């Protein structure tokens, strides 16, 4: 069966299945389990209303627990076994990881990524948001800077492969070096700094995201606070740093953490650009090296990523709990 027909069938079955489930489970609940008639009508309505939320939540909770909650434990459990999954090795896989120079490089590089990419993207996003705030063509400018968000990381990597190409007739970087009489070089093979050239790609993609959110936050600042500062004789720089930034600090933190989480997951860029060679390995791409070959090690790497993400996760949950109350 062609995948396309399979796909259309899946949509039909999936959609009717979902609607059918919600409708029929409601129907059964109201008609047969706790019917709103007979001597216990009033109690039955209350009982039905206590069950109904769980009917609404059931498919979502089932999918979430299967695809996101169980894997946290499943992966950890798997990481305690050897390559074939037959022998319990305790924390042996983690020992192997930390003994591997490439893993340590990946860990160090990931640390650099987490440090640099969110900072740069947030900074540039804030810069563009502020610059375009009062510009007549600001929306067009923002739309163009936002555009890379729609492009896949693979697409973005290819785009930048052209920029970084060694041939000065293809790579614009080397063409510019050529006009300055410098010999062409491969930016992706320049030790240590190549990491930063890869980060540029993610910054290029994520600046738009930061810009959109920070721009909305800047617009949400009460006009009176800015006007009061102007009347008191504040300079534009003072207004920006002392009036505006403190008021959008919360949003800046959200943007920063969102990009940080993303950085820890993106493997596409390194995978496509260098394959982790030339000292550019990061954890997600390091994991893919072991995926399908040694599940024990692959899950161990995944769990290390999880541990790095954990503080942000806890912080998010704490924030969410505050909000709901």
């Amino acid at each position: 069966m062609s995948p396309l027909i399979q796909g259309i069938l899946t949509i039909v079955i999936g959609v009717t299945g979902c609607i059918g489930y919600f409708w029929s489970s409601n129907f059964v609940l109201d008609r047969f389990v706790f019917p709103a008639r007979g001597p216990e009508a009033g109690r039955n309505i209350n009982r039905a209303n206590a069950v109904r939320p769980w009917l609404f939540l059931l498919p979502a909770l089932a999918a979430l627990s299967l695809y996101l909650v169980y894997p946290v434990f499943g992966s950890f459990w798997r990481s305690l076994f050897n390559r074939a999954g037959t022998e319990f090795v305790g924390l042996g896989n983690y020992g192997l990881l930390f003994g591997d120079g490439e893993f340590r490089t990946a860990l160090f590089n990931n640390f650099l990524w987490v440090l640099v990419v969110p900072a740069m993207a947030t900074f540039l996003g804030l810069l563009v948001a502020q610059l375009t705030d009062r510009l007549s063509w600001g929306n067009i400018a923002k739309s163009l800077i936002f555009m890379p968000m729609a492009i896949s990381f693979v697409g973005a990597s290819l785009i930048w492969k052209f920029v970084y190409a060694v041939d000065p007739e293809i790579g614009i970087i080397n063409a510019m070096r050529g006009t300055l009489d410098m010999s062409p070089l491969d930016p992706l093979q320049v030790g240590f700094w190549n990491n930063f050239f890869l980060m540029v790609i993610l910054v290029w993609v994520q600046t738009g995201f930061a810009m959109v959110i920070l721009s909305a936050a800047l617009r949400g600042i009460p006009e009176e606070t800015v006007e009061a500062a102007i009347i008191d004789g504040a300079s534009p720089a003072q207004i920006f740093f002392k009036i505006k930034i403190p008021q959008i600090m919360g949003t800046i933190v959200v943007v920063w953490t969102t990009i940080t989480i993303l950085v820890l997951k993106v493997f596409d860029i390194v995978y496509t650009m260098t394959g982790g060679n030339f000292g550019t390995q990061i954890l997600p791409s390091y994991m893919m090296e072991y995926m399908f070959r040694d599940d024990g090690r692959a899950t161990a790497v995944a769990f290390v990523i999880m541990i790095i993400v954990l503080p942000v996760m806890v912080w998010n949950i704490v924030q969410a709990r505050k909000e709901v109350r």
Partner: protein
Amino acid sequence: MAKDDDGIAGSKTSLSLVTNLSVIFLVVLWLIPTVGLFVSSFRDRDAITESGWWKSPFPTQENIAVQTEGEFVETPEGWVLTGNVFGEEGSGEIVAFGGSRAEPTAFAPGETGELVRGRTLQIAETGDFTYFYPDEPSRNPTVYIAAEVPPNFSLVNYETILESAGMDVAFINTLTVTIPATIIPILIAAFAAYALAWMDFPFRGTIIAIVVGLLVVPLQLALVPMLQFHNQIGIGQSFYGIWFAHTGFGLPLAIYLLRNYMVGLPRDIIESAKVDGATDFQVFTRIVLPLSFPALASFAIFQFLWTWNDLLIAKVFLPASSDSWVMTVKIADDLLGSRGGDWGILAAAAFVSIAVPLVVFFTMQRYLVRGLLAGSVK
């Protein structure tokens, strides 16, 4: 928020000029990489390696060796060959020409070039040439010209990738993965979001907190256990597997976005409907769902972009055979490896894969921005 452009400090003319210039600079900087790819995708392999894409809109000067065609005609003085160096269809402008490889630019157009053994060659600017041999030529000679070649753009790369490189199959596969993986989570999430927003039950706050926590769980964790699970239940690496996976991974964001939106709907409408005897199911399908359209659209765009652009999930949950490659896998694992040097093909393939998301992006940007804001500004 009025845009006060005068009467306010900080909007001085000099400052606004600097602002304009720096924004222009940033926008150009942001666009250059994509424009480079776009332009390159319309140039053939040779053109790409011969001159940078930034020179492509301008005519380029190239030194070309042309093997002449046609038959020499015998005249009383000797043998003469006439024709055009650009062939019948080509065009260009001769800057200089020569009769030997050593001196390809010895003569100016229109001049009569004296070559070895009494031969002469004359080439006009248009490319028309007259080659004179005093003795009978054994074969057609080669002429050397420096020509201004007009910009040359073609669809040849697109033809190649769609016809022979298998990108058409990959395109269909991407579409097949994307559409069910976008629609199904929306439905599941919408019901859950309604329950979390408008129904009262124990552990509601806890479930919301868990959903928020799950937003950041690295997908890497799910790869090995879920693939194992898929193998156990017999779907293995297949489209079913990737649809389920995308549904599961998309749900936290879907529930979070939709709940945030639904919670903001006016309480009166929902309560008066309930007073009038509407059940929760009716309130949801008749009132909340239609009102939540903007949030549904935002999430649909997110999920569409994310599934379309995904490489990781497709690599793990789809079969490794080439007939089920999606475009990202096709480019990353196949084209970059086997055609690593063929920049035109790579550019065209990349552009085919980003064209659909770009269209979605520019037509639905409003919803995308709204979704981003609902998800982050609180």
